[in-house]
């Protein structure tokens, strides 16, 4: 008797489940790719995974995606992941990769390059790209002689932000050389003895990425002190961190960062202030600081207008004239043999794709295309950055993003933070970073 009751219940459950399965899946909508049905042979679907955050940036990307969908009739399923680095590796190694992915670090792409499709195999015309893009954009994503990724979006980093009118009113001038920058720092320091006011606003706190702002500074200094060849040797570990050249760069940083009078809040302030909040003192009526070095995205944290409340200038080199350019960016790579993927990649790198993406109101990046008209950028600041970038003496991708992960996203950050917090000296810091370099690499 009891079995009867259970059997009936069971049967009911199973039947209900089957009914639900039959009805439920029928009404499922399509992916979140937006409208399809444009002109073009289309009909293909391609999945895109990226880690770009921020409403405006994502909207800018969506504009390029929409343009692609309209023009070709293909559908793009866009997925944004706040933990992109973790998710993409898990998916790629788990056999469920996205068709296309945007990598914020070349090192990360190199790590999964075995599971990536070389761009030429995906139908991308690499030769044409070499001609159309700024030199270095394709090389950054080339590992072992094969092109796996191309820089599709550029974050220009070597910028000096000043307090605009209030800066010039106080009698200061934009420095032409690095030494001028240091004397300017000293001058402002003498004019701002009160606590809470100093020449520089610096903040590097960034949760599990704390330290990257410091490495950006060091990379900029490396480019200026030693030039591109030494920089490349440093990236490839042909010269150690504990070498005279690199040590000199760290010591330049030390001159500004470790001087309690030069930075708002001193080294504790540097370590505890989130990088996006670092410019808050400059937004006060009477500016708490006058100088800030950061990539273009920081413009969103300033209050007021470009030219009045704040201003931007190239971070000076050691001699006057066009300085070197440090940049980062996202590389686009393909993981499957979906034919639409190659089409999508080519579109993203094309003139219209770039125009739709970088020209979007509120976007904050530069285009890797050499022929991009700087006037198309949505803001005055970006136009200026575009001009600086195009005229730079030479450009290099962020070093820590190119180094192996255990150095670039672990030891380099960690040791610099320990150095800044005063718990170890420069020697130990440099040696520790060297020790973290994986053996069996290219030496």
């Amino acid at each position, binding site marked *: 008797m009891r079995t009867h009751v259970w059997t009936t219940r069971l049967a009911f459950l*199973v039947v209900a*489940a089957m009914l639900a399965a039959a009805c*439920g899946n029928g*009404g499922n909508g399509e992916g979140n790719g937006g409208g399809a049905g444009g002109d073009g042979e289309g009909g293909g679907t391609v999945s895109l995974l990226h880690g770009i955050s921020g409403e405006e940036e994502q909207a800018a990307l969506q504009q390029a995606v929409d343009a692609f969908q309209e023009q070709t009739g293909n559908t793009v399923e866009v997925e944004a992941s706040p933990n992109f680095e973790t998710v993409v590796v898990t998916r790629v190694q788990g056999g469920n990769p996205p068709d296309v992915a945007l990598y914020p670090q070349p090192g990360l792409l190199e790590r999964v390059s075995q599971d990536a499709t070389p761009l030429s195999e995906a139908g991308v015309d690499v030769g044409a790209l070499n001609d159309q893009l700024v030199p270095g954009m394709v090389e950054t994503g080339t590992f072992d002689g094969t092109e796996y990724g191309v820089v599709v979006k550029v974050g220009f980093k070597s910028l000096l932000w000043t307090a605009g009118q209030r800066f010039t009113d106080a009698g200061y001038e934009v420095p032409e050389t690095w030494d001028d920058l240091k004397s300017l720092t000293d001058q402002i320091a003498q004019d701002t003895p009160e606590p809470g006011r100093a020449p520089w606003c610096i903040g590097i706190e960034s949760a*599990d990425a704390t330290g990257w702002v410091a490495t950006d500074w060091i990379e900029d200094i490396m480019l200026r002190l030693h030039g591109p060849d030494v920089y490349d040797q440093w990236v490839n570990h042909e010269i150690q961190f504990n070498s005279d050249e690199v040590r000199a760069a760290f010591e330049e940083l030390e001159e500004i960062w470790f001087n309690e009078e030069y930075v708002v809040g001193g080294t504790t302030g540097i370590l505890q202030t989130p990088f996006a909040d670092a410019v808050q003192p400059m937004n006060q009526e009477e500016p708490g600081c006058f100088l800030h070095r950061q990539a273009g995205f920081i413009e969103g944290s300033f209050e007021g207008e470009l030219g009045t409340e704040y201003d931007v200038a190239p971070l000076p080199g050691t001699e006057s004239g066009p300085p070197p350019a440090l940049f980062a960016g996202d590389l686009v790579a393909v993981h499957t043999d979906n034919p639409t993927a190659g089409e999508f990649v080519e579109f993203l790198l094309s003139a219209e794709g770039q125009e739709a993406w970088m020209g979007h109101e509120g976007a904050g990046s530069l285009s890797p295309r050499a022929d991009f008209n700087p006037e198309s950028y949505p803001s005055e600041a970006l136009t200026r950055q575009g001009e600086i970038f195009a005229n730079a003496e030479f450009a290099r991708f962020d070093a820590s993003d190119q180094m192996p992960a255990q150095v670039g996203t672990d030891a380099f950050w960690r040791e610099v933070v320990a150095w800044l917090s005063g718990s170890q000296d420069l020697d130990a810091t440099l040696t520790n970073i060297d020790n973290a370099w994986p053996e069996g690499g290219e030496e």
Partner: protein
Amino acid sequence: MGQLVSVLIAIALGVGGVMVLFWLLNRGTELLPETWEQRLKPYVFVGPALLVVGLFLLVPALLTLRNSFLDARSESFVGADNYQFLVTDPAMRTAIWNNLLWIIVVPAVSVAIGLAVAVLADKLKPRWENTSKSLIFLPMAISFVGASTIWGFVYAWRAPGTPQIGILNAIWQGLGGQPIAWLQSTAVNDFALMFIMIWLQAGFAMVLLSAAIKNVPEETLEAARIDGAKESQIFWRVVLPQIKSTVVVVGTTILILVLKVFDIVYVMTNGNYGTEVIANRFIKEMFTIGHFGRAAVIVVFLILVTIPFMVVNIRRFRAEEAMR
């Protein structure tokens, strides 16, 4: 909508499927001759669960053990290199030292606070007892990351002379001091992080210890009072020995949890300023760096360290069951 239906189907199929499975297995054994049926039935009922445990727990554990002897991509044998890394890498040594500190401080303080609240609340009127216990227990409902975010704001630091947004520094600066960087100062940051864990776990300790205290026979307390014992003597000499096994179980449970802690450290300091812990290193090695050999060795280490405490826990559990 489609997703909701899929979830319901999954639940229905999961629950229903398991029921069907057991029903079929039961029918199957019933068809056998009597002796065989009696012999096989226990295994038949435990079998599926053992299979799942074996597949999802034992096999990965063995694979991890194997990976700990392989290189970064788990391709070639490297002998004890990863084990050498475990004991020589400075970040790992800091982590192991910190974990040691954590497992000494956190279970002890959590149990102490839980015990104190349990004993004191016991003496209140029922309504106050329930209110105070609920307040202490509430933090358990918050995730580790949520708690870290909350306390991140409590510990926040701004430059001296500027408005403080962290409550601790706001009070401290208001009283005339210089704001302290709680998460950075190596003297206090470990304890600042531990306190978050204690805040989360004291409620758990309190609930179990409160039940244990209430189980202490009233006669033993009265006998002690008649003999002229003071309240504190009653607590230390009469109550505590009788709830010893609960204290041990609670302590070891919290200890095992502490060994796994990484969210708090990850969110608040990312292991900087000397706060690194083993599980955080695991996350870095596994996901940021992608060195599977080292990640595996860290897991093996954690398992080895956890085993003694699990054994103690299970022994106490069995002893309690035997007493019933």
